[in-house]
């Protein structure tokens, strides 16, 4: 695959970087990145990955755009209210960069479809808003052996971590199971400062590009927590847990399952 003169111009600021160059830009052009959720985290990730020239972006989302989404989901505009998020997302991505192929999945990720969808991609970005889905993505990436960039946002706090299955700590190594439902507030009750989606989602996109390029040090075995009130990042070291039910020495989870009600809450903080 050769770049046209226009493409060389478009990606020139990448190509100038010794760590990227023409070779790296070709890796980006061949890359397939899956965004689970075309919402708060998925929006900035989709736009920056599109601008970067990622060959294929997959968008999974079963929702339509709601007016309350627009405060943070910058992939969608006012005129998109009521339209499927994957359709609105695809339009914005291709308006920004027609080089990008967009695969739309207007559905929820489930134990039934996850492996089939994920196996087509090089990197998965978690942009979902509920715990059962976060655990499902973690498990599916483990079974499909795909790197996962996990993200979460809540009120003024955000978190990112990168998971390389069988090599670095997974989500279940730290949080074994979704939290008990009765103790969890819903996203609507909790609220979130909109820009946080931009901060965390762009870090997720950065991680995905680094994985594609094979450069730098991935955010593995570390959880990066961000406090927007203090404008402070904090890094927490995590390790693979030999007792992990998924990736430990004696796993008890040997196939995908839906771990709880996907409509359960999203927000936890005492």
């Amino acid at each position, binding site marked *: 695959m050769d770049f046209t003169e226009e493409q060389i111009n478009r990606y020139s600021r990448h190509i100038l970087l010794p760590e990227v160059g023409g070779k790296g830009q070709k890796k980006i052009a061949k890359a397939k990145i899956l965004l689970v*959720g075309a*919402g*708060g*985290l*998925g929006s900035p990730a989709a736009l920056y990955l599109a601008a970067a020239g990622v060959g294929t972006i997959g968008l999974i989302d079963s929702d339509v755009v709601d007016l309350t*989404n627009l405060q943070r*989901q910058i992939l969608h505009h006012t005129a998109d209210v009521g339209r499927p998020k994957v359709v609105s997302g695809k339009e914005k991505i291709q308006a920004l960069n027609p080089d990008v192929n967009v695969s739309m999945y207007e559905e929820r990720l489930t134990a039934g479809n996850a492996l089939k969808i994920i196996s087509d991609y090089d990197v998965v970005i*978690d*942009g*979902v*808003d*509920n*715990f059962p889905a*976060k655990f499902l993505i973690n498990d599916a990436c483990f079974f499909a052996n795909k790197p996962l960039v996990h*993200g*979460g*946002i*809540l009120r003024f*706090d*955000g*978190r990112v971590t990168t998971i390389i299955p069988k090599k670095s700590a997974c989500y279940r*190594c*730290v*949080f*074994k199971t979704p*939290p*008990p439902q009765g*103790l*969890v507030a819903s*996203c609507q009750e*909790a609220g*979130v400062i909109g820009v946080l989606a931009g901060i965390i989602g762009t870090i997720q996109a950065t991680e995905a590009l680094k994985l594609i390029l094979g450069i730098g040090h991935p955010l593995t075995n570390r*959880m990066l*927590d961000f406090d927007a009130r203090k404008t402070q990042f*904090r890094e*927490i*070291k*995590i*390790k693979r*847990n030999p*007792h992990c039910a998924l990736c430990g020495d004696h796993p008890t989870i040997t196939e995908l399952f839906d771990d709880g009600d996907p409509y359960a*809450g*999203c*927000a*936890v*903080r*005492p």
Partner: protein
Amino acid sequence: MQVKINGKSEEVQGGTVLDLLKTKKIEPQMVAVEVNDKMLERDHLATTPLNEGDQVEFLFYMGGGR
């Protein structure tokens, strides 16, 4: 005694990690706890004593994304 909680030094009474959770009114099911970079199993919270200088990390679930 002094322990570091989420990176900040705090004066706490001795006892176990579970005692600390109770003092802080943190529901044990809602948090993953690391002491000195080691993840504690939830059923070890009550049997793990806190020691001077321990570094305790409370990792809360963070679920949002949309």
